[in-house]
């Protein structure tokens, strides 16, 4: 008998009752969430249960929802049962001011770097992680760049001396000489930084 989303859902509600919630099936993949304190219990149950056997961690990543007060950060696990070939998606949400989530490294070695990446970009503090430090960004970085409060550079800015990309510079592409002085003043403006090293807009 193949494993269907209904069976997984039934097994989970049987075990955790009201704690697991928000069952959805976007594009056929069962998606649900649980309180963050329970994440290891749920992952363990999914791993050990004789019927479920979700023993492969496909992916782990973070998402930032700045308008969800009290549950701004999400950690999303994609798990795979390779025997029955079923995938599920499991989410936990956490407060951005206290982003502590238990680490899944004890269960999946694969989670190690993926958690470091999530910490690096979203600042989720994985409690119990053997070596939680930045992985892709420099160690000195003191903010979490994938959070939504850090916008990408304004594409229409003309203050960059970026001759090779057709903006500003000696050839004057993208601007005319009249704006030259103006441009310099904008540059001075852009050079101001706050104490975290971010440019003041």
């Amino acid at each position, binding site marked *: 008998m193949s494993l269907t989303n209904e069976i997984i859902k039934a097994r989970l509600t049987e075990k955790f009752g009201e704690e697991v919630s928000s069952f959805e099936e976007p594009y056929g993949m069962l998606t649900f969430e649980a309180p963050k304190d329970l994440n290891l219990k749920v992952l363990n149950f999914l791993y050990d249960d004789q019927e479920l056997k979700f023993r492969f961690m496909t992916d782990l990543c973070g998402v930032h929802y700045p308008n969800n007060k009290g549950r701004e950060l999400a950690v999303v696990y994609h798990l795979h049962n390779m025997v029955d070939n079923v995938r599920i998606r499991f989410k936990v949400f956490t407060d951005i001011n206290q982003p502590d989530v238990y680490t899944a490294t004890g269960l999946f070695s*694969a989670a190690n770097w993926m958690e470091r990446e999530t910490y690096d970009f979203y600042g989720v503090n994985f409690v119990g992680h053997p070596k939680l430090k930045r992985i*892709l960004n420099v160690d000195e970085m003191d903010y979490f*760049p994938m959070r939504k409060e850090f916008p*990408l550079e304004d594409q229409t800015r003309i203050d960059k001396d970026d001759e090779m990309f057709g903006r500003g510079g000696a050839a004057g592409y993208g601007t005319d000489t009249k704006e030259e002085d103006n441009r310099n003043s904008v540059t001075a403006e852009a050079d101001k930084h706050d104490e975290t090293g971010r440019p003041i807009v």
Partner: protein
Amino acid sequence: MSEQHIKLPEGSIEKTTTTLNLGPTHPATHGVMQNVLELDGERIVSTEQTIGYIHRAFEKIAERRPLYQITTLTDRLNYCSSPINNMGWHLTCEKLLGVKTPKRVDYLRVIIMELSRISDHLICNSIVGVDAGAYTGFLYVMQYRELIYEIYEEVCGARLTTNMGRIGGFERNFNNIAFEKIEKFLKEYPKVLKEFENLFQRNRIFMDRTKGTGAISAERALNYGFTGPNLRAAGIDYDVRVHSPYSSYEDFQFNIPVGTTGDNYDRWLVREQEMWQSLSIIEQAYQKVQEFKGTDADVFHADVPEYYLPEKADVYTKMEALIYHFKIVMGETEIPAGEVYNAVEGGNGELGFYLISDGGRTPYRLHFRRPCFIYYQAFEELTKGAMLSDAIMTMSSLNLIAGELDG
């Protein structure tokens, strides 16, 4: 000599091991990544990897781009097989939008994806040879990677970072030269691959260098999230093409080669066998494509006016085409809200795209599941207690691509 002149780190004189920096720019790392090795003589005691040297914040950049502009970002993940990444991305978009592609498009995509799998495996396997000291094979097969790149050129105009295809299909139909070159490839390549195999497969030196080194058990490989040839070398027959078929892979007959020991030799063999399988898939797909006659033979994209650029002639003469053209180019098409995970079998394993859309014009969040990034963390376990020279072989047989590693 007074104490203040020489200040060594504490314990550094008593230390019996040597610290060696392998990389970030070392020819044997084949990419920008650093390994800090702790060596006892020539044996590795511990390894610490530093990655992120070419991190380009693709996930962040993608949050501001309309769907079609993200294709160029996927090119630069695993740049040895960028068409697979492109197709994978388009398939993800099509899944989100509910687009169904015509069979001919699927088959053309299969041809391209399998060609890029061959070019990916070809690079990896020949580089393993180079690291073992055999340069000949590498130079020999490069000619055929060149031929594959020429086919890309005919199809999309680019060679390495291809930006091939569009949401719904291809930007233009394959021309006759492309088909001629595919035919040429199918005709000549088997002989070359056989010759390449003869150089390595039963070569005593090569076998001694690769057998038993960098081995991983099936259980550990799964736990580490291995996918693709590296997982199959450990004996697990997991292949996305078979387990969740996309782009009509279910229409093709092929085997999944598996290894037993998960060592460097098995990884090499699995890749080698996969090239044969890919070749057979291309042959089948080519046959199927030839069977389309009349107007069916001109189909190269699905009908998705909101995402597929209209014909240029129509843009000048028809109002609707002009509007769509403008909206697509300016990225003013709203993406339906939803979240989707879609995976394809990339050169290195399961290449996944996790896309969350909140109904805006750009993805709310896009995450790439980069197989390389996930399995490289096993490197320490793979090389513990091994010789330094074996670690080099392990690194190249894992097929680490810095672009995919750093994202």
